[in-house]
């Protein structure tokens, strides 16, 4: 079998699984898996750029995804005018002071001559800047959070169409990636890993605590949609009459139509990204990246700027993750900072890339769909298996009860097992790099 045929067969297989879910279970579930699969595939593309092209070990995916989600809130939610009037400018001034402090400290460190004086001046800039920042910032935050805390209590967004949020989310993630990359990219791979792990935790704690920005754990709900609402479809006479003509139930089909709308949008984004990623990988730039990955010293000797290229690909990959994050928040229609778990948003994406085939964009996309499908399906399958295994036990047995209740945790076990098995027996993944 030729390689193209084999790849095509794998894709058909995975989509066959999703379609089978549609026939056996429900089309709603199948489309739900498809939509999140599309988003997962985009995240996997982003990680694959960093790991597969350039060998950068980023385990802060969760942070970039969450920043994309923040982008969706900042762009699409209606602005809270009272809050802006109360302290909007003051917040912006405070953030400007904070940024100026950091820039000032860095410039001071670079410009002054080494010695005790330099350390003292830099420290002084940082300390004074911090207190000035807090002095401007704290009253502003209090003023904003005081305004209708149950309903808003935050600045709101710009009230623009949600689709604009997707590139904005990517830009947010790219900005954070620039900061991380500037500080951590020169370090050894496991230091970069710890640094990205840390930055992701910090981004999540900012989203959880800065109520003026993201309402914190109170969550932002009702983010505008790029597709119609189900209820509007059900109330629209043309829709109802057309669907009834086809012999379908208006309520059920309305939710399917909405999901299909999302699938269409996500598919367009995925195809564009895939095309871009493939052309980049096959261009001289892509060959240079792989050359750097395989032998940094040799590439540097050939005159390639390794640090700059690493920074570039780190930003690009993170931006793709941010884009996926904005899309996911759009699909959910809400931003819930407490739902971001590293196992789900960082390490699961890594499983997708490794299983799919690191270094191959098609592989990453395939891994995204396949692993997401398994992530959803392992729970019911695990439950069935456990029910079968415990069938011999009495119905009121404590062990049976415990096992059945723990079925949800089968997911992590299975994912770990899959990752280890693939790494051991097929380390290049389902669709290996070519």
């Amino acid at each position, binding site marked *: 079998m030729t390689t193209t045929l084999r790849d095509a067969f794998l894709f058909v297989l995975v989509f066959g699984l999703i379609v089978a879910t549609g026939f056996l279970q429900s089309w709603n579930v199948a489309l739900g898996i498809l939509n999140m699969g599309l988003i997962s595939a985009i995240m996997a593309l982003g990680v694959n750029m960093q790991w597969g092209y350039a060998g950068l070990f980023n385990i802060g995916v969760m942070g970039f995804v969450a920043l994309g989600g923040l982008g969706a809130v900042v762009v699409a939610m209606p602005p809270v005018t009272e809050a802006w009037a109360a302290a909007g400018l003051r917040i912006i001034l405070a953030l400007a002071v904070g940024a100026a402090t950091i820039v000032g400290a860095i410039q001071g460190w670079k410009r002054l001559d080494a010695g005790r004086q330099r350390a003292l001046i830099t420290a002084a800039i940082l300390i004074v800047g911090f207190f000035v920042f807090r002095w401007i910032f704290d009253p502003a935050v209090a003023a904003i959070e005081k305004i209708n805390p149950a309903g808003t209590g935050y600045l709101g967004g710009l009230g623009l169409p949600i689709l604009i949020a997707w590139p904005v989310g990517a830009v947010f993630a790219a900005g954070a990636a620039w900061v991380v990359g500037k*500080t*951590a990219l020169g370090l050894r791979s496991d*230091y970069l890993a*710890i640094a990205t*792990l*840390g930055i992701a935790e*910090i981004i999540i704690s900012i989203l959880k605590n800065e109520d003026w920005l993201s309402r914190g754990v109170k969550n932002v709900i009702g983010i505008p949609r790029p597709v119609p609402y189900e209820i509007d479809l059900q109330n629209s006479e043309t829709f109802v009459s057309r669907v009834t003509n086809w012999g379908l139930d208006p309520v059920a089909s309305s939710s399917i139509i909405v999901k299909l709308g999302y699938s269409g949008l996500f598919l367009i984004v995925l195809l564009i990204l895939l095309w871009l990623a493939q052309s980049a990988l096959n261009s001289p730039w892509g060959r240079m990246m792989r050359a750097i990955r395989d032998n940094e010293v040799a590439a540097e000797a050939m005159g390639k700027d390794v640090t700059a290229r690493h920074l570039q690909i780190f930003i690009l990959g993170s931006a793709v993750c941010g884009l996926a994050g904005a899309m996911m928040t759009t699909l959910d229609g809400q931003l819930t900072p407490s739902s971001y778990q590293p196992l789900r948003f960082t390490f699961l994406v*890594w499983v997708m890339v490794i299983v799919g085939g690191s270094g191959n964009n098609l592989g990453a996309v395939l891994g995204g769909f396949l692993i997401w499908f398994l992530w959803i399906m392992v729970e019911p399958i695990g439950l069935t298996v456990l029910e079968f295994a415990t069938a011999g036990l009495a119905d009121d047995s404590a062990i049976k009860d415990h096992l059945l209740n723990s079925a949800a945790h089968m997911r*992590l*076990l299975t994912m770990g097992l899959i990752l280890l098995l693939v790494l051991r027996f097929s380390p290049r993944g389902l669709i290996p790099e070519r």
Partner: protein
Amino acid sequence: MDLLNAIVTLSNFVIVPAIAYGSQLALGALGVTLIYGILRFSNFAHGDTMAFGAMVTVLVTWWLQGLGVSLGPLPTALLALPVGIAVTALLVLTTDRMVYRFYREQKAAPVILVIVSMGVMFIMNGLVRFVIGPNDQRFADGSRFIISARDFKTLTGLNEGLAIKSTVVLTVVVAAIAVALLFWFLNKTRTGKSMRAFSDNEDLALLSGINPERVVMITWIIVAALATTAGVLYGLDKSFKPFTYFQLLLPIFASAIVGGLGSPLGAIAGGFVIAFSEVTFTYAFKKVAGYVLPENLEPDSLVQLLSTDYKFAVSFAILVIVLLFRPTGIFGGNTR
């Protein structure tokens, strides 16, 4: 008097908790640093190894409590600890045999081993949740306080109380014993010396006839003991919740790196540096300032540098500063 009150308040809310937390981090960081020194990779499954060890100990503790066994004022968990260590050692040795050894023989790149340890992390995390569930579990018993805040006040006549939880003293004592044993082992015994030799220069150690598989096996057993002890002490001091152990990964790695990866002494120092900074930066100094400063200067705000939820940011910031200015850590660890 005011100054004394200020000192007592500071001890109660900053120094005592930070010493306990620092000991727990130091034990965790020692495990990470040993793995790094001998097996040469960053073990991301360490937090979940701690959770697993603590879980086994919790289960045995419950069983002992059910039998009516008790150590009086000491927590029953101390009796269960050896069992926890044994089971955890068995688990990590099995993991090494089934997973890591293959890559060691292949001389795989360290980053591959890190990814492998991610897979192990998933499995251990799932295992812990599968057995004991994701919720908080209490297993501490025995006396809660060596000295309670109220007793301290009546004893000294001060306005402020200094409460010393028995778990804090226990943590420090157990950690000190563990560290003393570890250093005695590494510096005085033949096996310990061969471990250090292996860490310093693998090829030379092999030439001298040191059996690498034996060194690796002993390392894993020590790491299991350290991780279980750290996990149990943390669980006794706070509470046992699987997810918090995963989150400890960041401060633990920060401690190990700040001290210098591969350096046991550095891991301990790093643990305390991280713990003290985390607690100091997130403590509201209002009360202390109220005692120390004259009345007209008393602050209205909390005088808290950062909200408690940003404690990750503190360990992270220290980590970044150390990495930028002294990448080998305070004690100049292993740079490979």
